[in-house]
């Protein structure tokens, strides 16, 4: 009897939350449109793939052999060579940002090549280390290809493409490192976003409008309030998750080596944690503005910066590592990357699921306490 009454109250409250959610357009914009924009933005707009990178080719030696060797650059989709004759001119271009790299063919190249030790100099603009690395790969590939073609045509001098050593040096950022799993990380970001921007307003709004005072003096129980606020947003999150997975598979062709069901279930678990986090912040602050600022700073920004989404956590100072380990986002980030790239690695799955479940229970319990039917 008690359980039935509780259930019908839960249904009534959930219906109310759903209606409120659907009647406020901005909820749907943030909940559905923003994730779609993020997927496209991160998937396409922020791609580190390089096309038509401008390479200044300085020909200090313009023998036919040299021309053949560098001709491969012109045939590449990724590179577009700019031919020139003096090094200072090329340096000026790279400084001005008009070229992304310089390929220097020294005057003694043809002679050295015939001795089996031809050397080319590749100078990369390291301001953007990711682009620099890509160009390095493309340039090396293009030149090696061209020389192999020459060798195939029977020119004995190029019998061994290994005869060329490409000596490269990166300017402006000598280390040039970056780690990278954009699309799986995006799932973490989108799941975090709903908690940070939507559920963080829910309890605070009821405090501000005085609706809780009326609601408290009814048979309603705090836990019913919490669960009814989670339910409609779990549905929004599930829709977003489907969008992310479809985009990952069909738009960006990210490998999905782990099982789809585990990806879905663990994502829903993290979604629950993220929503509960937003609700808890909302219940503690009791003010919509403060709640949304707090949620942004305490969940969304760290999920972006400190969860391993952009920066590799192995390289950050100890303090930041400790903070990042405290974030639920970090644990889900490593889980989702493993699931996509590596596969069903059970120890990792078990560990992350246990941690996330603890967070979920803890946050729902804490949120329930903020709704303890007391006004003081």
């Amino acid at each position: 009897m008690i359980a039935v009454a509780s259930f019908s109250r839960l249904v009534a409250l959930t219906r109310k939350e759903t209606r409120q959610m659907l009647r406020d357009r901005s909820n749907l914009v943030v909940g559905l449109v923003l994730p779609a924009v993020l997927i496209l933005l991160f998937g396409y707009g922020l791609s580190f793939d390089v096309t038509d990178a401008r390479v200044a080719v300085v020909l200090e030696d313009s023998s036919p052999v040299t021309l053949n060797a560098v001709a491969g650059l012109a045939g590449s989709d990724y590179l577009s060579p700019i031919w020139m004759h003096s090094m200072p001119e090329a340096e000026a271009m790279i400084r001005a940002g008009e070229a992304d790299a310089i390929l220097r063919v020294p005057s003694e190249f043809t002679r050295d090549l015939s001795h089996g030790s031809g050397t080319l100099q590749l100078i990369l603009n390291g301001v953007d280390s990711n682009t620099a690395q890509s160009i390095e790969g493309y340039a090396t590939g293009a030149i090696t290809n061209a020389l192999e073609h020459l060798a195939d045509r029977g020119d004995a001098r190029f019998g061994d493409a290994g005869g060329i050593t490409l000596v490269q040096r990166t300017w402006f950022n000598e280390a040039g490192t970056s780690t990278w799993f954009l699309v799986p990380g995006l799932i973490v970001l989108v799941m975090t976003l709903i908690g940070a921007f939507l559920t963080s307003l829910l309890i605070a709004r009821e405090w501000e409008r005085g609706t809780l005072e009326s609601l408290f003096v009814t048979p309603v129980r705090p836990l019913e309030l919490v669960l009814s606020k989670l339910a409609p947003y779990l549905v929004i999150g599930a829709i977003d998750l489907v969008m992310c997975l479809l985009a990952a598979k069909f738009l960006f062709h990210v490998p999905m080596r782990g099982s789809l069901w585990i990806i879905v279930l663990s994502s829903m678990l993290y979604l629950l944690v993220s929503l509960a986090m937003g609700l808890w912040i909302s219940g503690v602050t009791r003010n919509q503005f403060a709640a949304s600022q707090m949620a942004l700073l305490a969940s969304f920004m760290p999920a972006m910066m400190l969860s391993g989404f952009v920066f590799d956590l192995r390289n950050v100072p100890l303090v930041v590592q400790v903070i990042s380990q405290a974030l639920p986002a970090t644990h889900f980030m490593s889980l989702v990357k493993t699931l996509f790239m590596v596969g069903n690695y059970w120890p990792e799955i078990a560990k992350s699921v246990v941690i996330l479940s603890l967070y979920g229970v803890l946050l729902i319990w804490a949120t329930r306490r903020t709704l303890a039917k007391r006004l003081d």
Partner: protein
Amino acid sequence: MRDLTVRAEGLRQVFDDPDIGEVVAIDELSLEIQAGELTALVGPDGAGKTTLMRLLAGLLKPAAGSLTVLGTDVLKHPQAVQDRISYMPQRFGLYEDLSVQENLDLYADLHGVPPDQRKERFGRMLEMTDMARFTDRPAGKLSGGMKQKLGLACTLVRSPDLLLLDEPSVGVDPLSRRDLWAIVQQLVDDERLSVIISTSYMDEAERCARVFVMDKGRILADGTPAALTAKAAGLTFTATPPAGTPARELQARLIDHPSLVVDAVPEAGRVRFIRQPDADQAKCEALLGDIRTAPRAEELEDAFMMLLRQQQDEPPQSPASQAAESDADVPMPPRDEKPVIVVRDLVRKFGDFTAVASTSFDVGRGEIFGLLGPNGAGKTTTFRMLCGLLPATSGQLEVAGRNLRTARAQARAKIGYVAQKFALYGNLSVRQNLEFFGGAYGMRGRELAGRIKNAIAQFDLDPSAQSGLLPAGYKQRLAMATGLLHRPEILFLDEPTSGIDPLARRAFWRTITALSKEGVTIVITTHFMEEAEYCDRIAIQDAGEMLIIGTPAEVREKAAAGADGETVRTMNDAFIAVVEQNRARHDRQRAAA
């Protein structure tokens, strides 16, 4: 024992305020409330009425004492009590984006009202609140009075064992107020409901079986309305001012002598006053002179005012009584016959909706002009157009000799505006607020310093106090001081007395009377109909239409002439009669068409 709904002993509630420190809201309070009857809690603002209500509803944990509601210890088992009571907080939390029906459904579901009872109950609630037509409308689109009625309907989706109503009629116009009471009264009659209602209206307290008068967290007195009223027996009189003198000037004279007069208010061209029980007979005669007085029957309001005055630590130094002296250096604006506000065929539309329809009136210099009307009548819209805050759709509007269409800025420099809500900076001191607003009006240096000094003296303000922490009555004074800093010819006051206790309201009107004597024109809106008696002329609006305009006496006469059979005694009766006569006429026209 079985018939007791509430029993409190040594109840004490303390709040920690980070700025003021410890605030005692309920102080060693003990009371017993009987079941099956209407009980009123009355008291000025800050008396602890709301805190007591919240304690009864199990929403607060007291620092000390015991509290039993419906035989259950509410401190130990709040949920058990909450399952059985219904509570309507001062601001009932309607979900504004949900429709009327959806709000009702939600509360019915939460209270577990079975579907078969629901239909009958909803039908009855919608009929009583006259909202059957609006079930699909979002709650946020209802007028203030309608929202309050819907709040009551949501509270009453089932018959509780105890109904708690916290100031259900604050900010509600007389018509909606009457409707609310009709609903409550019917439930008490039909279902023997136990109701505890807090209110600041004495006519409401008079309807209750038992009244508790609260002040500063304690019970000052309790008993039946008749027993309480008897406290003022033999002390109540009516004084008639000499012909040609406004009643408010006599009222001001009487209320300036707190040792002789407990309270004085104008009514129907005369002044009702209460003599101090121990007042010296000779001094009283000297004060009244040859003014005719007659004894009148005592009322609950009289007893209430006596109780409150006894609680005041010191006799109130009415801030404006010295106003005339401190501002003696101000040249008095000449009293001429030309009106300072001329309104002709004023219309304001919002899309298809006509908020103000073809309104015309004049206001003379030094006049106190009252604008009355139910919630949503168009008062605020008219007001905003007069202040130049909202352009008119059509019509002529002249304020202080300037056309508001062409010379809005010049007109604004001549007017002062005091908004309904406290619109000053709460975290600035009184002086800083005055300096800022003075600067905004283009005053500076010595001139500004002088005027601030005058304003602080005139309104008896503490310049270093933080504005946001002032009591409501003082906030009101500061707002007035700010609005008057640039010596406007016309002062606009939008519901200045909402949420202020009766004593502060007396002091407020004393200031208004003094300002009017100086030649400042006052335009004011209010929900307290008895305050209309201070005005020279009043206008009543409803649904954007100007229904009647004239002196309070004229309005009362006309209302009485149109009301068949119903007695029109007070301004409140007159207001209800005027609005209803007009609505009935509209209904007849619609039926004929």
